[in-house]
């Protein structure tokens, strides 16, 4: 069984620290990468396409970030989709915004698997992993 591979994209360092910790609490066998804005994350996906690194199965994506925000990341990601390796990437919008406009906008992206409001506690995170890995994690 391959290790779960997860990408966290958020400019909030406390969130990144705690979420990484929660993921590692849930399972020791897990790969977590973190980036603080969408641009870095897109660069990382480019590396994945070149085959330098493994494409993650899950991306937890914040909306409000400097440079390239969550929406910007999604549009860039959309463009890269045709050349992506043949496996599913599950992107979850993870945000502290309960702004209905954001939720509506999120529904327009078929690239999104889910929309989660912070804080994401351990049990919620376990649900996400279960959803993506069909319980095998």
């Amino acid at each position, binding site marked *: 069984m391959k290790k779960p591979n997860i990408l966290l994209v958020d400019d*909030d*360092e*406390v*969130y990144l*620290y*705690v*979420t990484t*910790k*929660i993921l590692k609490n849930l399972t020791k066998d897990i790969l977590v990468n973190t980036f603080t804005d969408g641009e870095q994350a897109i660069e990382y996906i480019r590396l994945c396409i070149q085959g330098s690194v493994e494409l993650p199965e899950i991306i937890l994506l914040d909306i*409000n970030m*400097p*440079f390239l*925000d969550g*929406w*910007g990341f999604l549009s860039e990601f959309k463009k890269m989709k045709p050349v992506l390796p043949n496996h599913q990437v599950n992107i979850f919008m993870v945000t*502290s*915004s*309960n*702004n209905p406009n954001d939720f509506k906008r999120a529904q327009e992206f078929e690239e999104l698997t889910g929309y989660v409001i*912070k*804080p*994401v*506690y*351990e049990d919620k995170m376990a649900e996400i992993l279960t959803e993506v890995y069909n319980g095998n994690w």
Partner: protein
Amino acid sequence: MLDKEPDKGQLFKYLESVFTDLEQQKIALDKSAIVAFTDIKGNITYVNDKFCEISKFSHDELIGQNHRIINSGYHEPEFFRNLWRTIAKGMVWNGDIRNKAKDGSFYWVATTIVPYLDARGKPYQYVSIRFDITKQKKQELELKHRTKQLEDFCFIVSHNLRAPLSNLLLLTSMIEGCESFEEQKLLIDRVAKPVHLLNEIFNELIASLQIRQDGEIKRESLFLQDCFDKIVESLNVEVLYPDSSIRSNFTKAPTIQYPKKYLMSIMQNLLSNAIRYGSPDRKLKVEVKSYEKNGSIWMEVKDNGIGIDMKANGKKLFGLRKTFHHNHDAKGFSLFITKTQVETMGGSIHAESELGKGSSFYVQFNKNDSI
């Protein structure tokens, strides 16, 4: 009603009473409403005194003119097309219209236009009956503006407090679930950051609330150039940024009635933003000028810095705690405070910018009665 076959005397008496009735009704109407008659092309054939009084045109200036003479340009062409379609069909039109008086001031009237129809049902003239609702419109707009400000404020509060709160909730739940003391200690160390952030945001919100309550703060007559020179001096521009060129021209609108504290703060925030986000590729150039436009005093601060991606960030630019660059000492607070100060004094602020080229900020200090 008339009985059958009236004699002349009866007829005369009857007509006289009808006439007196009509006369009385006309007097009552003229006392209460703004009345005008036009032909089917909209050329004015009659106006009453109230019409002259509110439009500030004399009777002779209005008769024979097209009704467009008081058009304020506020409504879309479709608005008047619809009006004309309605009355040309012989139907009554109702609506609120903003008109322009002779001296350029605006007034709002609740308007009813009734077509006079000939024997074939075709309009041959129109009568418009209007009531002055300028005061109500002003209050309505003021109320809308206040509500918008309040909504913005609530949004800012909830939006900005939510992120650190959510982190604290997560941390707390993890601390509670911790098995080892060491692990707990590590987590507790992480609590400090969101707590301090919460505290800072809270203080900033309080500061901005205080500005909003300052609506009656004293205005004084200020020379923009003097204030600006003091700001340039206080920022120590000549010493710290010797290569930069900061030019100002306040000759087109040299003075303003404004609270000194706010003017200084607005200038300081806009200028220090321009300096902070200068481009490393070229010498910093800032141009500041003031001018009068549409009865308001404006100030423009234009730089050739790194610019802002307006498409992505334009709407959030004046929000609390927004920074748009990787600059770490950048605090988003100054634009939020600037906007609060400008709006509290009844003005407005907006920005134009292009990434890599520079930004311009436009402050309209006092909105002219722009209803």
